[in-house]
């Protein structure tokens, strides 16, 4: 058993055990589940730390071959786990953050009647995520990719007693699958375009230059469609806000730290391919930019605490895609790294608030809560997301900004506006929640929910130090470690300094403005909850109109009109014709012997006439 095998299968094993126990013996004590769940994810978190340590310092690649999945013709798919720098980097935050969220969830889900089921799904999810990260060929990666989508379907619809929750799950999975459609098609095309045998990432990148550029562009585009679905970018983002129907730990795990980042990971994984298709890169950058802006605008008019965070996730993912789009892959990944911490922290804090205040989620109802511990955590996370120095996201976001500045100035402008909006909506939430004349007191937060937040807070503050740019006499150690096919940018230090200060200055200005507007005022009450922005620019309605309704109409048309009316109608009417003709003849058979005699006579006469006619030449 190699390290990677244990790392991967520990969560699966614990998921399986929990599942068995839940099914076989429903009276199991809760601590059994807790123990198993934490063992599974804890073990893989520890090993993940070890693996990334190994990769970072020893510069070694761990490889484990498990078995041959498929071998037909040239289609050879090996299930091989491989922890190269990129995978190790992903492991570095995916597994530990997952573990922390597991710990948090033991508190959040305490005494829930489906405690066991929850952790079975949770661990299963971690398994699929790790499979996605560790896969050494795209097909296995796709299995993990679909797997996380599937488990997230189950987790979003976790409280299935309310059908609406399961519809949110359905939506998430279906939209994800639209992306998967692109991903799968891209993989098939890629396989067929590469004449070399084998389909591991290394082989693919070796054969890339053999593909003609149109085909390559198509492949890159389709891959990106997959990423759009998973990472909730325009136009496939609609599932993410709805996905908040799941319990909060689910949002923290899936919609902050792991699943949604898979799209970014995938694009970074295919970096050599994307470097050959500049058009698609530009498209990615624009999609990212508009998604970021779009989400930020919508977030300013949201009232549900989790929805605000959901849109901020989408917006941050937009930042990552912008970075990917200009070819700054490691920068994007680094932002993903810091994002995992602060977004997990934000969701955890939000979850703690929700639990403490009787499952209220509307910030208008939660005004003036008094919880100093949570406030500090929330404040740190919010400062991090708005990229105030010296918090970690400052480093990552600033790197994105300077890359954009060097690459595409118009995208930079969008990013700049977005980051100001980020400050606005995040602090709006913070001020409305904590700075109010009214006062609410909730239940104290459980220890098991508070403890996992502490390491995250520390990471929020200090994680940025891992990749300090040259300007602060750092050496970009993460970027060097990842060693991706980054495109290089050069921004003079003075300009970069100026950029940072400007950014920080404006952000602070926005924070002050927000404070003036929302702290200790009732401004939030006067905001209108209708209009373009609050209705998410009617995108959902548009999709319903154009896709859902059309499909239902089509379904009705196909089934009722074509199948039943046209085809079945034709066949039945053929049968009917026989029936009608039969009836016609049957009418002659009236049972009256005289008529039968008449028919005979007619027959005879016509027979004779025919005979006469044919024999007339002899007569």
């Amino acid at each position, binding site marked *: 058993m190699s390290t990677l095998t244990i790392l991967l299968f520990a969560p699966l094993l614990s998921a399986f055990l929990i599942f068995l126990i839940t099914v076989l013996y429903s009276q199991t004590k809760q601590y059994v589940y807790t123990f198993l769940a934490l063992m599974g994810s804890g073990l893989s978190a520890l090993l993940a730390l070890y693996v990334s340590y190994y990769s970072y310092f020893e510069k070694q690649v761990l490889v484990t071959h498990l078995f041959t999945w498929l071998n037909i013709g040239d289609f050879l798919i090996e299930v091989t786990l491989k922890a190269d720098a990129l995978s190790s980097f992903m492991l570095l935050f995916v597994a530990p953050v997952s573990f922390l969220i597991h710990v948090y969830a033991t508190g959040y889900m305490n005494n829930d009647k489906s405690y066991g089921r929850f952790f079975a799904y949770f661990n299963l999810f971690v398994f699929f995520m790790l499979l996605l990260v560790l896969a050494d060929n795209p097909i296995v990666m796709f299995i993990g990719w679909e797997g996380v989508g599937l488990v997230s379907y189950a987790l979003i619809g976790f409280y299935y007693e309310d059908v609406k929750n399961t519809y949110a799950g359905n939506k998430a999975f279906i939209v994800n699958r639209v992306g998967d459609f692109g991903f799968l098609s891209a993989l098939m095309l890629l396989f067929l375009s590469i004449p070399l045998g084998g389909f591991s990432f290394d082989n693919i990148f070796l054969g890339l230059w053999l593909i003609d550029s149109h085909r390559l562009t198509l492949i890159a585009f389709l891959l990106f469609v997959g990423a759009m679905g998973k990472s909730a970018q325009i136009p496939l983002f609609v599932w993410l806000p709805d996905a908040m129907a799941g319990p909060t730990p689910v949002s923290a795990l899936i919609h902050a730290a792991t699943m949604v980042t898979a799209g970014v990971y995938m694009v970074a994984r295919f970096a050599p391919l994307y470097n050959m298709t500049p058009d698609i890169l530009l498209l990615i950058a624009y999609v990212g930019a508009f998604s970021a802006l779009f989400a930020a605008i919508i977030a300013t008019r949201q009232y549900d605490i989790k929805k605000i965070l959901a849109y901020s996730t989408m917006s941050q993912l937009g930042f990552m895609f912008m970075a990917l789009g200009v070819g700054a892959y490691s920068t994007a990944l680094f932002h993903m790294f810091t994002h995992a911490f602060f977004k997990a922290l934000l969701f955890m804090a939000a979850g703690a608030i929700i639990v403490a205040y009787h499952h209220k989620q509307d910030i208008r109802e939660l005004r003036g809560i008094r919880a100093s511990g949570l406030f500090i955590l929330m404040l740190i996370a919010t400062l991090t997301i708005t990229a105030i120095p010296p918090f970690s996201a400052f480093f990552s976001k600033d790197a994105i900004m300077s890359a954009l500045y060097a690459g595409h100035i118009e995208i930079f402008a969008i990013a700049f506006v977005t980051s100001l909006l980020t400050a606005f909506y995040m602090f709006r939430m913070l001020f409305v929640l904590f700075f109010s004349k009214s006062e609410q007191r909730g239940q104290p937060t459980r220890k098991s929910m508070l403890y996992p937040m502490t390491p995250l807070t520390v990471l929020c503050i200090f994680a940025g130090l891992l990749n300090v740019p040259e300007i602060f006499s750092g050496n970009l150690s993460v970027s060097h470690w990842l060693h991706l096919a980054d495109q290089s940018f050069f921004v003079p230090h003075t300009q970069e300094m100026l950029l940072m200060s400007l950014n920080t200055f404006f952000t602070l200005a926005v924070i002050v403005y927000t404070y003036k507007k929302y702290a200790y005022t009732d401004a939030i009450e006067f905001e209108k909850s209708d209009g373009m922005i609050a209705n998410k620019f009617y995108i959902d309605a548009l999709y319903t109109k154009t896709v859902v309704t059309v499909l239902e109409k089509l379904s009705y048309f196909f089934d009722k009109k074509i199948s039943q009316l046209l085809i079945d109608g034709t066949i039945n009417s053929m049968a009917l014709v026989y029936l009608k003709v039969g009836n016609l003849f049957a009418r002659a058979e009236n049972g009256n012997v*005289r008529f039968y005699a008449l028919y005979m*006579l007619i027959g005879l006469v016509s027979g004779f006439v025919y005979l006469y006619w044919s024999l007339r030449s002899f007569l």
Partner: protein
Amino acid sequence: MLKGYMILSIILFSIGIVGLISRRNIIVMYMSIELLLNAVNLSLIAISADLADSSAQVMSLIIIAIAASEAALFMSLFVVLFRNRASLDVNLFTILGGKE
């Protein structure tokens, strides 16, 4: 000579058929059937006399014998029918159509 017999036979046959088809009383229809038989008989005999071959005459004798037994059979059937329906109008007897 033969021609005259044949014409008579055809006329008799036609009368029989018309009677069979157009009359509604079973007894009259039976009489028409007898007429048909006898028209055939007549032509058989005439042809056999013409050909100087007596076998057809034997056949016609057999036909007459059969017709006599038929008459007995028919009459008894008519009696049964009349008991059931109190009428001998054929339009009432459409059991063959399968609708009763």
